[in-house]
C-alpha cells in the first residue's frame, strides 16, 4: 500500500505541469479574459449609463419575480459550470497525453531500467498510472474547477457592488454554487469509470509501441473504422458502421474528455431540447452523472478498459529499453 502511495507521489512529481498547472492555467486564462470583458463592458456602460430594460440595476432585486430569479440562478449556475469547464477541458488533454506516454517514455529515456531495479511489481506500477489518470488528475482538476467557478461568480458580484446592488440577493442567493461544486465532485468517479476504455487503450499502446505511440493509438481505431465501413462488416450483427464509429472508435479515443458521456448517452445533442438555461442546467446536473452510472454501456466500456490495463501490465513484464 505504501508502495502505491509512493508511486502516485512519483507520478505527480513527474507530471505536476499537466496535473496541476494545466488546469490552473486554463482556469486563470478564462478568468482573466472574463474579467477584462467585464471591465470593457463597464467602460462602455459608463459611457451610456447602465440600465437594463430601463430599470437601474439596484432596483432589479425588488422588481424581479420568482421566475426571473430562478432563471437568473440557473443562468449563473450554468455560467459557473462553463467557467469550471475550462480546467476540465485541460484535464481531457492532460489525461490523453499522460496515458499515451505513461509506459512509453520510461522506455524511450531508459529510466525503465531504474524503475525496474527497485522492488516494484508491474502491477503496482501500472495501477498507479491508471489511478493517476482516472482519479488523481481529475480530483486536482475538479478542485481547481470549483475554485475557478467560485472565482467566476465574484466577477458579477464585484460589478453589482460597484453599482450599489447586493451580490447576495442577485448572485449567491439565486445561484446554487455548492450544488454546482457537488455536481463537479460527483462527476469525478463517474469520469473515472467512463474514461477507462480510452485510458486502457492508450496505456496499452504506450506499453506496446516501439515508436510513435500517438500515430498507432489514433490510426488503429480509425483504420478499423474505415475497414468496417468499407466492407460493411457490421451488417453481420444487424448494425450499421455508424455504430462501430461511435461505440468503438470514438469511445476508444475520446472518453478521457469530461462530459463526453452526455453526448454518447443522449445520442448526440440533437435529441436534447434546450429552451433555456434551466434545460442546459439540468443536463449538466448530478442526475446526468447518475444516468451515466446506470447505463450498461458505461460498464461494458469500463470492463474493456480494465482488460486493456491488465494486458498492458502483462506486456510491461518483458519490456525493457530495447
Amino acid at each position, binding site marked *: 500500500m*505504501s*508502495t502505491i*502511495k*509512493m*508511486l502516485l*507521489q*512519483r507520478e505527480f*512529481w*513527474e507530471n505536476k505541469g499537466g496535473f496541476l498547472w494545466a488546469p490552473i492555467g486554463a482556469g486563470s486564462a478564462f478568468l482573466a479574459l472574463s474579467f477584462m470583458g467585464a471591465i470593457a463592458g463597464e467602460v462602455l456602460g459608463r459611457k451610456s449609463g447602465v440600465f437594463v430594460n430601463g430599470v437601474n440595476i439596484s432596483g432589479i432585486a425588488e422588481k424581479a419575480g420568482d421566475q426571473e430569479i430562478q432563471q437568473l440562478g440557473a443562468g449563473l449556475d450554468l455560467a459557473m459550470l462553463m467557467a469550471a469547464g475550462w480546467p476540465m477541458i485541460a484535464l481531457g488533454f492532460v489525461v490523453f497525453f499522460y496515458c499515451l506516454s505513461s509506459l512509453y517514455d*520510461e522506455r524511450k*529515456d*531508459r*529510466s*525503465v*531500467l*531504474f524503475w*525496474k*531495479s*527497485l*522492488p*516494484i*511489481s508491474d502491477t503496482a506500477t501500472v495501477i498507479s498510472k491508471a489511478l493517476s489518470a482516472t482519479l488523481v488528475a481529475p480530483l486536482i482538476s475538479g478542485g481547481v474547477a470549483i475554485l475557478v467557478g467560485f472565482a467566476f461568480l465574484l466577477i458579477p458580484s464585484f460589478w453589482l457592488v460597484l453599482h450599489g446592488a447586493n451580490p447576495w440577493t442577485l448572485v449567491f442567493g439565486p445561484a446554487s454554487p455548492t450544488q454546482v461544486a457537488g455536481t463537479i465532485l460527483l462527476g469525478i468517479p463517474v469520469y473515472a469509470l467512463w474514461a477507462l476504455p480510452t485510458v486502457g487503450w492508450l496505456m496499452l499502446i504506450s506499453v506496446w509501441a516501439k515508436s510513435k505511440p500517438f500515430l498507432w493509438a489514433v490510426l488503429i481505431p480509425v483504420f478499423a473504422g474505415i475497414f468496417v465501413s468499407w466492407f460493411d462488416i457490421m451488417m453481420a450483427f444487424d448494425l450499421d458502421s455508424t455504430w462501430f464509429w461511435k461505440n468503438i472508435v470514438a469511445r476508444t479515443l475520446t472518453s478521457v474528455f469530461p462530459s463526453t458521456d452526455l453526448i454518447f448517452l443522449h445520442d448526440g445533442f440533437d435529441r436534447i431540447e434546450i429552451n433555456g438555461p434551466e434545460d442546459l442546467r439540468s443536463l449538466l446536473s448530478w442526475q446526468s452523472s447518475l444516468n451515466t452510472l446506470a447505463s450498461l454501456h458505461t460498464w461494458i466500456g469500463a470492463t474493456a478498459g480494465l482488460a486493456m490495463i491488465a494486458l498492458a501490465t502483462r506486456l510491461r*513484464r*518483458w519490456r*525493457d*529499453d530495447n
Partner: protein
Amino acid sequence: MNAPVISARGLRKRYKGQDALAGTDFDIPRGRIVGLIGPNGAGKTTALKAMLGLIPFEGQLSVLGLDPRTQRDALMRDVCFIADVAVLPRWISVGQAIDFVEGVHPKFDRRKCQAYLAKTKLTPKMKVKQMSKGMIVQMHLALVMSIDAKLLVLDEPTLGLDIIYRKQFYQDLLEQYFDEEKTILITTHQVEEVEHILSDLLFIRDGRISLAASMEDVGERFSEVMVAPGLIEQARALKPLDERQVFGKFVCLFDGVPRAQLQELGEVRTPGVADLFVATMKGTYQ
C-alpha cells in the same frame, strides 16, 4: 552457505535468429567481485538482463535461489543494478529520489545515502537534468550503496566518465559497500580499471563462457614470458596462447605450463587481465 549466488545451466537466448547466449553455464559464488568481460556483442548485457529478469530466456538460471522469470518481484528485494549511467529519470531531484527509494525499498538506509551524498557536490534540490554524467553516477551509486542488497549488478557503470569519477566509483564501491556477504557482478570494457578489485573473471565470447577462474587461479594458470633472444622456437614449442613483440622482444602467454619450465625461457610474470583478454579473444571481429 556456499551455494552459488548465481547458477546458470544451458542458458540460451536468441535475438532475431542469432544466439546472444548459446547454452551458457556458469556459477558465481557468494562474496566475490566478478568481472563479466567480453567483446561487443558477446552476450554480456543479455546475460545480465536474463539474471535480472528483464528478458525471457531458455535454460536454467537461479539467482539467489529464485527464477528471475517467475519470481522477479521477490528477487528485486535482494538485487540491485546500475544499468549504464543515463537511466535515472531526468525530472527527478536528489531529494525526491531518496524519498522514493526509501518509500519502495524496505532495505534502503536513508542516513547512509545522505552521508554519502554529503561528500559530493549534490544538493537535495538538484535535478538529474542539471547534473553532469559523473554527478548522475554519484547519485545513482549513493542510492544503490544505501540498499542492503545481496547482489549488485553493474553494467558498464562508468561508461563515458572521466578517469577521476571512474577511480572514485570503484574505490567507493570497494571501501564503503562491499563485504563478504555481498556479491558484485561487473561488466566493463575498461578492464585495467577493475582488475585490481576483481576476485573472479568470467570471459564471455559468442554467447559462451570462454574462461571462468578466480584471480588466484589466473595467477597460477597463466604466465607471461619475456622470451630471451634465441629461445623463441623453444617457446613456440610449448604452444603459447599468444605471442606479441615488445621492443623487438617476444612476449608469450602460456596457459597451464609450469612456471619452473618457463623460467628457463626468460623473465616470467603474471599477465594482466587486459593482455589475457586480448589473447583469448583473438579473431573475434574477423
